[in-house]
């Protein structure tokens, strides 16, 4: 969107769930892009392996993959931060 923002839109190959958009404003107004209280929650085949790859990529891990039971569903959940400080939750249900 010229003079407002530029963005890219991504979807998982599964076609399930919503898309993720990364955007950067170009309207000249100052914005704080860092450490905002926003999170994306990704359901993946192996959250433990993915968390390891995220760590290898040099990104901060907030929580190593840990078993939880949420609403009666068992899951392995890892938490990381992306380069802008957005929280990324990686979930594998059992």
């Amino acid at each position: 969107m010229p003079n407002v923002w530029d963005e890219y839109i991504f979807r998982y190959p599964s076609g399930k769930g919503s898309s993720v958009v990364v955007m950067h404003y170009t309207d000249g107004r100052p914005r704080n892009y860092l450490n905002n209280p926003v999170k994306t929650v990704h359901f993946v085949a192996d959250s433990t392996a993915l968390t390891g790859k995220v760590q290898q990529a040099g990104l901060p891990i907030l929580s190593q993959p840990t078993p939880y039971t949420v609403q009666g569903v068992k899951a392995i959940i890892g938490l990381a931060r992306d380069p802008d400080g957005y929280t990324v939750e990686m979930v594998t249900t059992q």
Partner: protein
Amino acid sequence: MQATGWWMIAVALTCGVAACGDDTPASSAGAVNSAGSAAAGADATAYLGAGAIGVSDLDVSQEFYTTIFGMSLRYALPVPGYVDERVLHFKDSAMGSDVVLMHFTDGTPRNYKSNPARLVFYVPNAMAITDAIRARGLTVISEPAPQAAFNNTVIGFAFDPDGYALEIIESTRLSVPFLGAIGLGVADLERARVLHRCARHAADGRAAERAERLGRIHLPLPER
């Protein structure tokens, strides 16, 4: 976790510095090669489960999203000493991800107002949504109107109670709304662009090429 899943996660995170080996445009050739091999091991089941936003008042935001967009509370999830979450969903829709409202209780100050994130909703009637938002005294940034660049799709913009931007896209094929996307403002779009090149050979190449051409693309309506 198979590699393409990682690519898409990395793209979603805009983090693929290590994933592509470098975050400079010169690295794109290597990135493409890596992405090409990654595609063979795609995690076909991965999906975005939810987009979560920090809000200043959970009750206010829950009332807003349930009333304006017809969402329902799936469950409340208090994590004592850290965060209270409320998971909202469109119980009558099989499309899109959940919306999670978060309010942190760990004592760390956070800015909940006017953050550069946005929620994109597909709705049956965009004007009805923006009228309802305006009636609450909230800002309608732009009235729903046909956008010639996007096949005359009717799109409007407004703010939620905390100033998160809401993109409201009309699809008369729908009977109920759904969350089309969550947008994350990033400091360095070029970093995401490199990952974008990575992902082009994985899952979303057509969108990537269109995005580079148009600067912005209209979200595809997911298959039912």
